[in-house]
């Protein structure tokens, strides 16, 4: 199986790749966006919304958010459907000031009730250390919470519907057709969100955490009963999903894009102190490619970059160095501990690590990309455990 002749995805993509005469299923499925009847697709969504509005007393659905651009678009579409959502968010403790601004502006601008679950920080940090030790992955504990807590809330409060943004398995590797209208499931969570590492794999027998404190890391039991009460839909199966255009369109709601030294996309995961830093480095260490490759592949498929232009854009970012010290300091790791980890666990990406402050270099991009970008701000403070995002 050679690599795809259109996009930049390697064979090692964690979701699994399949090809049909040298074109990967991601690129093939992407073509559906241009020949599907999207008004009919949208009518299925309206039908789901109508069914739910009758059945609920308080909230018609739950929208899990972190406060990045995609969440603004999802909330905008959910309100357009006439649903009254409960916003649910899990605090990763990785927000910078832009992150808190966007999260708090989201609930204020759209005037919605919201829950923020702040996991007990000692257990959370212990799980991050375990995840680093066993899988060289630092986001796993939060993703386990982010994909499980909203389902617990939906089940306990009998809210029948959870609405997510994009289904990455369809958008990235074309695992299903849009027409399959694939829904949230415990299987998909383990396969795509957690890379086959649920909380029990993570703690094994060796992790020194009190198992009693893992209740929200564990996906709700008894799938037969659960499936009758809670259904999870992905908007990307019902709307012709185009992140860059969508994210630009929601700037008017007060979203702040963030200066990004590691990709041209200032919208996706804006407000995080780790997503394009330590997380991107570990992704490269594990899988051999960085977030910029996802973005370049996405833009090739949307016809805003030719393959050669994409390779050139990718090359501008792929060598950019990352300073991992703030993350290790947050994790209370000593200087020598950090150096040990870099030497022994980050061999492949060691040339990408630097101790000095990373200055934002301005890049130029093809016009089709540049027209969808926007002026972005620089974060002043990282790792704000709990912040006040907006002033009166």
């Amino acid at each position, binding site marked *: 199986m050679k690599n795809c002749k259109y996009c930049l995805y390697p064979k090692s993509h964690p979701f699994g790749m399949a090809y049909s005469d040298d074109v990967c299923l991601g690129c093939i499925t992407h073509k559906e966006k241009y020949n599907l009847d999207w008004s009919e697709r949208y009518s299925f969504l309206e039908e789901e919304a109508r069914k739910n509005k009758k059945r609920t007393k308080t909230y018609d659905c739950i929208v899990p958010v972190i406060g990045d651009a995609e969440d603004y678009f999802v909330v905008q579409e959910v309100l357009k459907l006439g649903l009254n959502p409960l916003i649910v968010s899990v605090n990763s403790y990785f927000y910078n000031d832009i992150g808190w601004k966007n999260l708090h502006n989201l609930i204020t601008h759209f005037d919605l009730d919201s829950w923020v679950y702040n996991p007990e920080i000692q257990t959370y940090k212990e799980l991050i250390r375990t995840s680093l030790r066993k899988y060289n992955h630092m986001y796993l504990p939060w993703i386990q919470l982010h994909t499980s807590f909203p389902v617990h809330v939906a089940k306990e409060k009998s809210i029948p519907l959870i609405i997510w943004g994009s289904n990455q398995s369809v958008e990235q590797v074309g*695992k299903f057709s849009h027409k399959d209208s694939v829904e949230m*499931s415990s299987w998909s969570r383990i396969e795509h969100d957690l890379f086959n590492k649920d909380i029990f794999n993570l703690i094994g027998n060796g992790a020194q955490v009190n198992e009693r404190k893992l209740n929200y890391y564990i996906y709700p039991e008894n799938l037969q009963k659960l499936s009758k009460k809670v259904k*999870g839909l992905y908007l990307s199966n019902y709307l012709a999903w185009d992140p860059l255009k969508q994210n630009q369109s929601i700037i008017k709601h007060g979203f702040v894009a963030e200066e990004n030294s590691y990709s041209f996309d200032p919208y996706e995961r804006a407000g995080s102190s780790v997503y394009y830093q330590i997380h991107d480095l570990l992704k490269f260490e594990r899988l051999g490619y960085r977030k910029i490759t996802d973005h370049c592949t996405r833009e090739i498929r949307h016809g805003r970059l030719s393959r050669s232009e994409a390779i050139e854009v990718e090359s501008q970012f792929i060598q950019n160095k990352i300073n991992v010290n703030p993350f290790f300091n947050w994790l209370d790791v000593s200087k020598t501990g950090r150096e040990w980890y870099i030497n022994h666990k980050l061999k492949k990406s060691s040339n990408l690590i630097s101790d000095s402050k990373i200055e934002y270099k301005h890049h130029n991009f093809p016009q089709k990309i540049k027209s969808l970008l926007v002026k972005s701000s620089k974060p002043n403070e990282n790792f704000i455990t709990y912040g006040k995002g907006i002033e009166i």
Partner: protein
Amino acid sequence: MRTGSVILFKNGYCYQSYGWNLFRPLGGLQNIVSHLDKYLIDDITIIRPVRDNDSSADFLSDIEELKKLKSSSPISFGGGIRNIDQLHLLSGLPFERFIFSSILFNENNKLLEVATKLYGKQAIVGLIPFKLKPKLSMFNSEINKFVPLDKLNRNHLDFCDEIILYDCEREGFHSGFSKEIIDRFKLDPKSCVFSGGVAELKNSFKNTSYAPKAINIENSVLHREYSILNYYEKL
């Protein structure tokens, strides 16, 4: 009438197949099977979708991978079992039944005799991928070609406790399984399993002359939480 699932497994990874020529990636085998256990599915059919490009090394590595599989549901396995030595390799697998396809278009039935001896008659399952257009034909995976009806070796069918009729054209769709295949094959539906475009047809088969022993749903088994229940509920 059982409701089972079909999982395509090759080189240690699971795939979905649409219209017999397009593969989509699916995921790791253990995660899929653990969830089908939780969904209380009636049985799991694992098929290696090898055509004429199988190698004994691939076969061996897949067998090693399959030995590690943990499941509390009945499993039948097949795809590429074409000689006696391969038969003996199967004994270490935690599966109850084994599936044979190419041998049904072959003369020498030594393989099925030994298989019955080793695993018992109840463990032998036949698989006939078929299509109606342009004319009725069956897929012989060993030579990777559709062959006419007369190529089917009738007395080999008698070895099989159940026969899976796999509609290649309707594979990946939720309905449209061409049930007239039963009359064309003059088979007893009671000993047949329908697959390919059957997901939403269980009710339409019930208490009709076409009612099969089981339907095995391909691809869409994992499209939503506990999709089997939904099929039960609809059915």
